[in-house]
């Protein structure tokens, strides 16, 4: 039986883990290498590493930090931030990433999704979509949430999977860092339409929220940062709550 994945996320800025609210007001949450060690020890199902200012600073991801973080991971590692070319994808894989998250470049240069999937396989291409609610629909943002597009999130999710994305990372910017829970309507709208796995992100404040993301939102994996980084809960707590709610997790 395939298990629901629990994924801690390291948002990295200038080589440090940070955590904000609605993508701003960033607070230091430690060293990524040390955090990776802790999550590997706790038995996280995967780890996500996002260089959140690589696109807005118009620079490449910090490969040596990725490298050192990957060295602590005997679990799958998804890395995103400033990925613009096949060469960037290849460099991240060589640095120890297993999957690569593409966000801004997926919009600026959509063919990268297709080329990436052909070259490295769809399973390696995670398209990350940052979304804000806009009355009855959801709009995509790029550059770490700094730039609004006119693209509808649901249509975009469907399009990128047709192009070859093997997984989607859906982040609600409205909920990010608020602890109010996932935007389950957004998740449901996407998971019911796309054929690939979806990682729910943005808003987890309680363990019950993790359960909601899967049961109500239809997500295949749940991502959280603050609740794990600041020690409120560990991976085992999350697993226990999800198992008690009838979901399949690793023991």
């Amino acid at each position, binding site marked *: 039986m395939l298990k629901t994945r629990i994924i801690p996320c390291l948002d990295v800025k200038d080589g440090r883990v940070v955590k904000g609210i609605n993508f701003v007001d960033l607070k230091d949450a430690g060293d990524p290498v040390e955090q990776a060690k802790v999550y590997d020890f706790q038995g996280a199902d995967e780890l996500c590493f996002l260089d959140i200012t690589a696109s807005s600073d118009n620079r490449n991801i910090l490969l040596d930090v990725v490298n050192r973080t990957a060295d602590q991971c005997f679990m799958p590692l998804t890395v995103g931030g400033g990925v613009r070319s096949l060469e960037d994808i290849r460099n991240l894989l060589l640095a120890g*990433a297993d999957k690569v998250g593409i966000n801004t470049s997926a919009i600026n240069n959509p063919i990268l999704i297709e080329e990436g999937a052909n070259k490295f396989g769809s399973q390696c291409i995670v398209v990350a979509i940052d979304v804000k609610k806009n009355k009855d629909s959801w709009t995509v943002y790029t550059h770490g949430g700094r730039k609004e597009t006119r693209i509808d999130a649901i249509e975009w999710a469907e399009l990128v999977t047709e192009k070859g994305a093997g*997984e989607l990372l859906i982040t609600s910017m409205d909920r990010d860092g608020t602890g109010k829970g996932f935007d389950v309507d957004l998740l449901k709208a996407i998971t019911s339409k796309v054929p690939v796995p979806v990682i729910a992100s943005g808003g987890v404040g309680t363990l019950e929220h993790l359960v909601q993301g899967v049961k109500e939102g239809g997500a295949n994996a749940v991502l959280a940062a603050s609740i794990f980084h600041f020690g409120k809960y560990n991976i085992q707590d999350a697993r226990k709550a999800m198992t008690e709610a009838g979901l399949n997790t690793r023991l």
Partner: protein
Amino acid sequence: MRVGIIDYGSGNIRSVFKSFEKASLLLDKNIQIVIIDNVEELKKADKVVLPGVGAFADCMQGLNNINGLVELLNKMVIEDSKAFMGICVGMQLLANFSKEYGYTEGLSWIDGEVTSIVKVEEEMKVPHMGWNSVEFDQKHSLFRRIKQDEDFYFVHSYKFNVQNNKFVLAKTHYGGDIAAVVLKDNIMGTQFHPEKSQDAGIQFIKNFLEWAP
């Protein structure tokens, strides 16, 4: 003993190398893990590991791009019976052919074909991505100190349909049975990623390092 991990431009060499290094340190035996990208180095290896992340055709192309590599692999594995382990696409390459993005011939070491995972219900997502339980033949030394139905990490959209079921050592279930470990004499392949499967994965690699087929 020298264990060679083949770098043919595909995938997560570094992760594979790190996990093999960790496993060999835990065994505390004189095992050398080396990354190999040419035939001269490969000749010196006692065991061969073929990782694989990516598309089948692209991986096969990568193997063919290294002059003499496929010939030497055939000699070492088929004639000299050296222990071999393929991981993910590295396992699928053992088949006769794959239907991923067209039609591509494989190494034909274990008869069978590679086809896409079948969606049996609307909610089923492909790729098969995440931790799934593995059922295996408990008597085999490759599964020493691993519990039945242990979870291993999978990430793939295609599967290896092995013609003769006796070469399937372990299976998992996702929209039907999927070969998780194939084994034919000295040739072994895993659909899951032991290098990404934490403790169980490291134990599996230790078992491979100690394996004497």
